């Protein structure tokens, strides 16, 4: 601190620049508190206050009726987390070390299947494996009962794995490859190197992936609705309390009940993170395409088999979505047609354009806010920024419907009357996804050598100039990653915005949701295919950018 005070820069820093600096910082504080903390508080208070009086009644009846549901939710979430994490470890290792020709194809499949449209996947599952399922009934010739927790766990595990595997591939890319060489040179075989060197190095990434899966499974209401049968979970109950029973206080209370295990998992992760500092040196610049590890020996072969099983399932599932978009049935026989696409025109009208615009705005603004938070956190190390960072991570671990509910409750009256506007949807998406850009920026910014910023200061640069001329240009890749992530998330989001959209402000995902809800499964499939295509195109274009960006270094 003493050195700081004596820096030339602090003496010649103009008031104006200091003012700008403070303004940016305060704006961020203000935004995070208003758009994350306040809505959450609104939900919590809703569950305690009935008719203007403080009461615990709701929690009493909640605990009486829903303990079983809580157990079910946790049971499913834990199983899903285990299976999906194991699957994604296998897939990511296999794809990372297979030869580059397959690598591209397999990564594209992962990207394609990263988006799992609500309901559609579950319905595809029924049409493949249900009582009259294409595989179970038509090919294998038996009648299966697909309803229950098995179906939920299977669908969720498969559905979350693509995104998880992509994240882990990113982690593997960041690991210093020379470690594998050393291991191989010292006589370790592939199996050994993977289990003793690679997987321990992936630990941090694996924990994050596990945590995210756990939270997403807890919050998922759409899979259990379709294939849960008589097996109920909390997320479904919360959703039904809004859409069927119109019991908001109960919905709020159930959401809070869901939030508790999520926050416990999150805090455990934070504690765990503290004493794991192996991976923090993620090196973005180290990029050697040589595959030192070969897929041979028992363990790598096992990974290969698991990967192919997983990919086959994914291809089957998405193929069946695609087929249902392009076909109709007549007297039990399927025929090819463009009718669904024509019919879907009536549904779409303008909603796709709106979705794309909202996603672009969310991508840009979200990346900037996330970047600024990580700047004040990592470089400036401003006191209290840790708390802001913690709050801004909350939306990611709370159920989407909880966050959406918070927005209606918080922003329906003066001075922040936003309900009914498009802005509330955009704000919801930006802040719901804020952890993505913040974490991506932090990963990049923490790589910047502190000596660089020190040097700038010694040369008399004001913080603002350092931010603008040094940090920002060095964080381009973070911007790109954040933008793509945010774009994808907004394009495919549903849970948190479903209660916020007004007549005339429909988004593509909601139109799909409506089509499927009213039994128009095939039209839902058409819209799902279009969503997947758009998102895939944007992902591919930007990952191209990203690769070029890397070569600059």
């Amino acid at each position, binding site marked *: 601190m003493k050195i700081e005070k004596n820096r030339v820069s602090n003496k010649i820093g103009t008031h104006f620049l200091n003012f700008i600096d403070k303004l940016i910082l305060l704006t961020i504080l203000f935004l995070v508190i208003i758009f994350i903390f306040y809505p959450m508080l609104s939900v919590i208070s809703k569950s305690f206050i009935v008719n203007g009086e403080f009461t615990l009644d709701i929690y009493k009846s909640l605990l009486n009726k829903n303990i079983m549901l809580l157990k079910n939710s946790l049971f499913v979430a834990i199983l899903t987390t285990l299976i999906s994490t194991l699957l994604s470890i296998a897939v990511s290792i296999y794809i990372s070390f297979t030869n580059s020709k397959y690598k591209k194809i397999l990564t594209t499949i992962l990207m394609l299947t990263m988006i799992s449209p609500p309901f559609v996947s579950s319905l595809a599952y029924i049409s493949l494996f249900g009582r009259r399922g294409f595989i179970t009934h038509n090919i294998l010739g038996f009648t299966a009962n697909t309803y229950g927790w098995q179906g939920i766990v299977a669908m969720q595990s498969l559905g979350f794995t693509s995104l998880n595997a992509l994240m882990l591939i990113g982690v593997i890319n960041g690991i210093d490859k020379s470690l594998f060489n050393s291991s191989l040179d010292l006589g370790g075989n592939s199996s050994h190197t993977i289990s003793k060197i690679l997987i321990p190095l992936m630990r941090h990434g694996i924990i994050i992936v596990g945590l995210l899966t756990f939270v997403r499974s807890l919050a998922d209401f759409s899979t259990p609705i379709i294939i849960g049968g008589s097996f109920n979970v909390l997320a479904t109950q919360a959703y039904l309390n809004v859409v069927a029973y*119109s019991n908001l206080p109960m919905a709020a209370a159930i959401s809070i009940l869901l939030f508790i295990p999520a926050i416990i998992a999150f805090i455990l992760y934070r504690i765990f993170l503290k004493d794991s500092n192996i991976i923090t040196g993620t090196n973005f610049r180290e990029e050697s395409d040589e595959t030192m590890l070969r897929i041979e020996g028992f363990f790598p072969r096992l990974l290969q088999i698991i990967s192919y099983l997983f990919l086959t399932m994914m291809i089957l599932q998405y193929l069946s979505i695609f087929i249902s978009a392009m076909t*109709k049935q007549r007297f039990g026989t399927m025929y090819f047609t463009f009718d669904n696409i024509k019919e879907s025109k009536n549904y779409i009208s303008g909603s796709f354009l709106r979705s794309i615009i909202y996603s672009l705005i969310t991508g840009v603004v979200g990346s900037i806010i996330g970047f600024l938070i990580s700047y004040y956190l990592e470089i400036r190390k401003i006191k209290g920024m840790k708390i802001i960072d913690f709050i801004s991570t909350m939306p990611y671990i709370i159920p989407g419907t909880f966050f959406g509910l918070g927005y209606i409750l918080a922003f329906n009256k003066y001075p922040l009357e936003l309900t009914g506007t498009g802005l509330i949807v955009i704000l919801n998406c930006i802040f719901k996804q804020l952890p993505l850009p913040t974490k991506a920026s932090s990963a990049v910014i923490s790589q910047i050598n502190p000596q660089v910023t020190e040097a700038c200061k010694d040369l008399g640069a004001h913080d603002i100039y350092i931010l603008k001329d040094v940090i920002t240009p060095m964080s381009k890749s973070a911007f790109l990653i954040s933008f793509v992530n945010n774009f994808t998330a907004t394009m495919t989001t549903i849970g948190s915005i479903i209660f916020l959209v007004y007549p*005339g402000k429909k988004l593509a995902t909601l139109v799909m949701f409506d089509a499927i809800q009213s039994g128009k499964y095939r039209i839902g499939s058409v819209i799902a295919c279009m969503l997947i295509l758009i998102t895939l195109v944007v992902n591919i274009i930007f990952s191209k950018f990203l690769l070029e960006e890397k070569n600059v270094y």
Partner: protein
Amino acid sequence: MKNTSKILILLLIFSMILSLAACQKKEASDDEGEIQEEIANEGENADLEGTTLNIVATSESYKEFFDKFTDETGIKVEFISMSSGELLSRVKAEEGKPMADIWFGGGLDAFMEAKEEGLLESYISKESEDIPAEFKDPEGYWIGKGLTIVGLLVNKDILEENNLPMPTSWKDLTNPVYKDEIIMSNPAISGTNYAAVNGLLQMMGEEEGWKFFEELDKNIPYYAKRGKDPQLKTMEGEFAIGIIPADKSAFDLQEEQNVEVVFPEDGIPWVPEGVAIFKNSQNLEGAKAFIDFMLSKENQQILAQIDGKDGAQMVKPGVEGYDLGVPEKRFIKQDLSSFGKDREPILERWSELVGDK
């Protein structure tokens, strides 16, 4: 490049602050607009052309109907589809602020609840004179747009596979041979299935009725959480019998799969689908114009086409719809007021009966 990023960041931050401020301003001007509109409405011939009417509908399929309204009146229609329950939740969350001007379709019980809570505006259209009293609210808070009638969808493949007889009445469904072969939606979620429960209780009488549901429950493995599930899952062959709203879309399935729509012999439960104007509507005159439009004979005809309804299912006498062979005589004699006032006790007793299914 040097300055652009800084400027960009600042611009974005300021634009966000500005847009927040703009929202408040816009709201203020909306209020003014409302007052002006009210003044304008004092005069009889308010010019409605160019105004916007917001509608909450039950499905996206009404777009053409709304387009026709726009063509005839010049009033632009924006609409969104959602369930009655969700709508009530949102109106409650926003403390009575209406999210639209018109509420178009949905189970009558929700309309009765909304009327009770003072969320609706009364309007008695001239066009409603010849509509039978049982299809409209005496005080004009809601009006029926057509009837949902409850029938069975039967998957004949599954019947054959398991050697099951064709069900012809509600009583048949309690036959133990249908164990795990029947699907119905949770009546708290599905308006159609609530109509089935309420209607059958009225037909069979309290005691007998509850006994029937207790027996039926033994054949139902779980209650679906979406209104459309019984139809979808029976068609997919997941179940042999689904309890469904019998309209043309169900009859159309007969061409897609080996399924059949059955009207039970012992009675058909029915419920009007409501239409209402929200209290504090931003475009009250436009909303009234819409109700008039909807109730004209010509447009009732179009509505019958879109909804796939038989003439017997329309509220206005003499409207021709599809000929679905709906046996009007089998309609259960129902006291509709029970739909609203008995809803809570019925659903409570029902959920005690079925437990956690």
